[in-house]
């Protein structure tokens, strides 16, 4: 039940904002300076073109030519043929390692800053395996993996005469080995006839599984435009050797097994794993806790080098769905001598507060559901639950857990039903953030009243806590 569009937008906005903060002031200065320099030249050329005679045109052309010496135009110049603004990408040849992907080859491919840096740092091993089928050519370009995730770079060329799109990307390591597609990044979603598009697929792996070298990358390509498939999906399998050991030596696992206590609730920090692709903190709720934990608020890691001069604060990406793992981006600091973990608090509630009994035909709450209002749409067999989160402010927008229900509910006869089509929305009502969750009740007859379980909602206990991990 994670289908909260506004939640997704907020999370994505937060990610984009943080990614965008990583750009240096120098690059921004350079971009605006060059832009204004170009603007001066363009304006001068216009004056030349629209001038009243050859003399004016010549004078303006001279201004245009000499303007590269003027303040604001940039000493490096921006005439055709000269390099445009880059993102501070190091020269790909620095490592001179033919087995690694060259960051220059990924210019123009939209991806998270974290992935971009992984390629820049030479962690993506080259594969270069190509398979063609039914007019599509898939090239597996490179891959980087630790024991939690894998990034795969692929290019697809469309030699058919119609638009297509990549509808599926997955990696098959064999039966019983966990491999779950998480996302696909790229800038060219449509495969225009004759064109090639590049993507980065993120695959979730499990630290409990052993991953064999032999794997199959599988992509589904569907002809036709969005919403208008024009044929059957073409599945392309590309067998490849995964670089299961490539980053192993660079992985550091710190066993912690100590507790962080927030408002009497104990959270056992089990371990922190630092890899070139990310940092993973595994934790567990203490079973003796009297509250049910929804989330850790604003978790932070602080990594410091031996001299104490370099400090890295890797960005928190989010939790792993269904697991007690906090994911952070890879840090700029290798082999930190100290690691500190902190939270601003927890969002948690008494177990009884997560129980909700209601009549799904009338919307009347029988038990629980404090602060909730329920409305019913009998035609659609849907219910909408609404609550006030708190003030409509940036903090709540970023941190507040979405109101979610468990995926099933039980009716008065003990029959289990599955909820469908969850739709969450938040809005600003007179300065208050209100959220609503609309869910489908399914086609089956529901004996009244029905019992639901609340998976999460925003119930913050703001009590900061820290733990020295290393």
């Amino acid at each position, binding site marked *: 039940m994670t289908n909260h569009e506004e939640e997704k937008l907020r999370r994505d906005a937060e990610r984009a904002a943080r990614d965008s903060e990583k750009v240096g002031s120098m690059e921004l200065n350079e971009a605006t300076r060059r832009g204004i320099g170009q603007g001066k030249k363009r304006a001068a050329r216009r004056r030349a073109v629209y001038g009243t005679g050859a003399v004016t045109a010549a004078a303006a052309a001279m201004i245009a030519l000499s303007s590269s010496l003027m303040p604001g135009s940039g000493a490096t110049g921006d005439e055709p043929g000269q390099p445009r603004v880059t993102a501070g990408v190091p020269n790909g040849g620095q490592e001179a390692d033919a087995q690694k992907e060259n960051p220059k080859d990924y210019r123009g*491919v939209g991806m998270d800053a974290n992935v971009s840096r992984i390629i820049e740092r030479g962690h993506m091993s080259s594969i270069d395996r190509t398979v063609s089928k039914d007019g599509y050519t898939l090239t597996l370009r490179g891959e980087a993996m630790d024991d939690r995730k894998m990034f795969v770079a692929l290019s697809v060329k469309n030699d058919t005469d119609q638009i297509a799109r990549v509808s599926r990307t997955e990696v098959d390591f064999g039966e019983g080995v966990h491999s779950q597609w998480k996302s696909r990044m790229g800038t060219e979603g449509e495969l225009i006839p004759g064109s090639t598009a590049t993507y980065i697929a993120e695959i979730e792996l499990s630290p409990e599984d052993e991953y064999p070298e032999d794997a199959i990358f599988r992509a589904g390509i569907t002809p036709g435009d969005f919403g208008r498939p024009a044929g059957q999906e073409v599945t392309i399998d590309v067998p490849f050797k995964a670089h299961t050991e490539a980053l192993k030596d660079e992985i550091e696992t710190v066993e912690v097994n100590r507790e962080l206590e927030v408002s009497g609730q104990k959270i056992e920090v089990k371990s922190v794993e630092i890899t070139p692709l990310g940092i993973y903190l595994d934790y567990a709720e203490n079973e003796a806790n009297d509250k049910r934990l929804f989330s850790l608020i604003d978790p932070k890691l602080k990594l410091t080098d031996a001299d104490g001069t370099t400090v890295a604060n890797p960005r928190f990406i989010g939790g792993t769905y269904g697991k007690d793992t906090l994911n952070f981006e890879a840090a700029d600091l290798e082999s930190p001598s100290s690691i500190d973990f902190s939270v601003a608090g927890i969002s948690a509630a008494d177990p009884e507060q997560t129980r909700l009994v209601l009549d799904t035909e009338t919307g009347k709450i029988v038990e629980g559901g404090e602060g909730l209002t329920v409305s019913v749409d009998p035609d659609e067999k849907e219910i909408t639950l609404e609550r006030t989160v708190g003030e409509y402010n940036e903090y709540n927008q970023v941190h507040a857990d979405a109101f979610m229900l468990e995926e099933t509910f039980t009716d008065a006869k003990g029959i289990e039903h599955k909820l469908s089509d969850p739709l969450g929305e938040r809005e600003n009502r007179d300065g208050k953030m209100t959220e609503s969750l609309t869910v489908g009740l399914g086609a089956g007859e529901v004996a009244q009243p029905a019992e639901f379980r609340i998976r999460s909602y925003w119930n913050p206990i703001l009590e900061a806590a820290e733990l020295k991990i290393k």
Partner: protein
Amino acid sequence: MDTPLEVKQGSARAAEENEEKFIGKIAEHRRKLYGIAFSYLHNEADALEVLQEASCKAWVKRRSLKDGAAFLPWMIRILINCCMDELRRRKRVSPSERAGEDRTAEMISSHRIDLDRALAQMQPKYRHVIILKYYHDMTLTEVARVLNKPEGTVKTWLHKALKQMRELL
């Protein structure tokens, strides 16, 4: 009484001061502008290129800006037009999954590609409202100023954009 030479020097100084002010304004808002470009393009290098292009266009058009206080919405308008040009030029329109496909993985994923696909399917005006409101926390009044439309119109666009997004995700 000023001589023609003094008048000429005076207006040159005023022009220089105006230029400095203009450059200062762009510099003041460069990070915000970059952030908006990044929201559209999701790529550092591309966002910087667009910021460069928008700075260039703004300079060329700077005399069309009559109200200095309206600089930021005006500049953002130029910037998002540059972003859309860039997206069009590079055919950066991501299709969304069609209804009925296996959406299990999507349900688990909260990643950008899903949103990008949904946003890419929207009319540019809806996309602008979503990005400016949710990614840059602008009020509808501010969004209306950027897009140069009445607030009521923008509110309607937002409603329709969210409705479309629900259908697409």
